[in-house]
């Protein structure tokens, strides 16, 4: 009898210990699993986010984008999650015809400066709306040449403008592709 009781007791204790052990291990496993999961995911995402932020900062620093771009980003929210990208895409689509018009107008002889100026005015308006800083600078330069009637200057500036325009387009494409991977990020910090 005595032994019976002892035996049962020990069995109970053993069982208890085992269950503890199991639960503990299970828990720890889950915990470890979770920890590992969070660790890896968070790290990747924040990494990417950091990368994205760096990319954007460099665009600002190099003068490709200005304050207006930040404004655009601030308008992006749950209702308009891809607002900035939409606007930029629209810009590149719409400005193609303006660029074409300018090309054609620049090939005429003699140059119609008022027409050129008018095209460029539109182009400048769009470019400044998305914050394309370098492009806008070239637009201003172009209009100045138009004002003084400097045909050569206009043509030169226009070539430069096209370069800037194309460069920005590529950079923004990369930027947006990356941004899509990262997913919605917190509001962009203003570039210093």
């Amino acid at each position, binding site marked *: 009898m005595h032994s019976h009781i002892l035996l049962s007791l020990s069995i109970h204790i053993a069982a208890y210990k085992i269950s503890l052990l199991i639960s503990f291990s299970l828990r720890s496993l889950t915990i470890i699993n979770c920890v590992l999961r969070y660790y890896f995911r968070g790290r990747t995402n924040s990494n990417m986010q950091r990368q994205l932020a760096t990319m954007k900062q460099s665009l600002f620093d190099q003068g490709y984008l200005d304050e207006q771009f930040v404004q655009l980003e601030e308008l992006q929210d749950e209702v308009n999650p891809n607002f900035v990208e939409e*606007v930029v895409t629209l810009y590149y689509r*719409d400005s193609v015809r303006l660029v074409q018009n300018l090309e054609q107008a620049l090939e005429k002889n003699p140059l119609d400066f008022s027409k050129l100026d*008018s095209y460029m005015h*539109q182009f400048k*308006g769009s470019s*400044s*709306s*998305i914050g394309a800083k370098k492009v806008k600078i070239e637009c201003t330069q172009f209009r100045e040449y138009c004002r003084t009637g400097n045909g050569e200057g206009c043509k030169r500036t226009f070539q430069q403008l096209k370069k800037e325009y194309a460069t920005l387009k590529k950079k923004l494409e990369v930027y947006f592709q990356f941004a899509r991977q990262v997913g919605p990020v917190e509001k962009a910090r203003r570039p210093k």
Partner: protein
Amino acid sequence: MTVEEIRGDGDNFPVGLRVLAVDDDPICLKLLETLLRKCQYHVTTTSQARMALKMLRENKDRFDLVISDVHMPDMDGFKLLEYVGLEMDLPVIMLSANGDPKLVMKGVTHGACDYLVKPVRIEELRNIWQHVLRRKKCDNKNPKKSSGQVKSHQANGEGLGSPTGNADQNGKFNRKRKEDEDESEDNENDEDPSTQKKPRVVWSIELHRKFVGAVNQLGIEKAVPKRILDLMNVDGLTRENVASHLQKYRLYLKRISSAASQQAHMAAAFGVKDSPFMHHMGSLDGLGDFRTLSSARLPNVVLSPYTTTTNAMLGRLNSPSANVSLRNLSPSVGPLQPSQAQNLSSSIASLNKMNFGTQNTSLFQGIPSHLEQNATNNNSKGILGTSNFNAIDELLNGASFNPEPFDASGAFGSSNPLLSSTESFHSQLPLVNGSRRNDASLNGAYLNTDFSSGVGLVGGEVHNMNYGNNIFGSLNSSNISGNGIVSRLGRSLGQNNAISNQRMDGFVNGRSSVSGGSNLLQQNEIEKPVNELRQRSNEDSFLLEETRLNAGFVPQSYDSLDELVNAMIKREQDETVSNCEFQFDDDYAFGNGI
């Protein structure tokens, strides 16, 4: 407090402010829309100014505020601004990538509440509701004083449209009237028993014709509202209505005369080209001078004789000769071939250049092309269309083209044209009779005025010459003030045309070209009406076109004749003439007169 009175917004103003955004640049438009939504406004967007106007006209109560770009392909932003200010009296904010102070000034003088430079910041948009509030407040209380007189004038003028609009010009008089007018303007909303609700008097063509007839009968000097009212014998018309209309009319004539004097010079220079009419002209007082002048193209020298001549002619109020005098000028040109027309136009152009500067030139440049396009009728029209106000005289002289299309032209050339022109019209164009009557009275009326300049004649001419004097008509319309006159002419012409359909075709075209004067030359400025006019020149819709033309023209004239227009605008704003432009009823009076 007015906040509560503001429709639909109540205590949560400015949330829910209804904004109409117009911009041809899709990027800016999208951006603007998003920004405005962020401010919790209700946004409607369109990239077409015409669409915007249509929307606004459909329901005047649909929007609280309009934001519009300055550079747009189908219509200039300033024109849209004028329209909106006059018709709907909504606050308009201009938007442009160009922040040049001159443009900003232009915006403000045209009545814009505000001028924003692209790219637009959200902070700027957060404050736009102030303009709405300000305007409403002013509307309800005093004569509108929002952003300066221009706006108030426009607002008042627009609302009043009718004779009361004149009140704007006259400070004291205006003040008293303005309140009444404002009240009547805010009729729908105004439930204040203290305000008198005067139903707006619409100065239809008939009414205006009667008015002008009465004025002519009495003599412009002696025309007093009471007597005019008695003569007109119209129910429901008050002395005040007549008085304000008379005021507008007087201002209009003054404007014409000043413009006409310039044109007279031009006309004088050109007036006497190889037309057989010269003889006749010589018979007329001072007409002979034209002949000498014809080749000379001396600006001022030519002008004075011409002016005096025209003045003399004009002096004879109801005499057809007066009307004819201008006509003579034109008929003389009648036989001119297109090439001649070309010459004329070029000479006119040169004259313009001499006298008026680039504006005219550009206008005239258009003339030759215009001339080429059509037959003689068109030619005359082209000239008319293109010339500015100044050009009117020249055109008149060159108006000889006009006669061509009409068989009457020959008649004009041959007989003592001045006198016979009117008559010839009658004989040749039976339809004219009806209109002629009007014309004569109108002409007389206009002639009586001090403005001897071709404009006056033209105005009269227009009526008489509806058929043949496309040039005149168009000249008047286009050149004269551009705004009021054109519209006026259009109307008057339209009326006459209604009577005499057939010749309208050419005329219409001419008219459209003329009134569009700037329109023709400046395609982009030409509004739909003008285009329609051209297309439908052969229709009897002349009247309709005329009116449209007028409306269209008015804004366009601004562009083409910068200084003139601006001056006119300012004047008009003061006067209610501007109102007239958009409201044919009002303009009719003036237009007919011309």
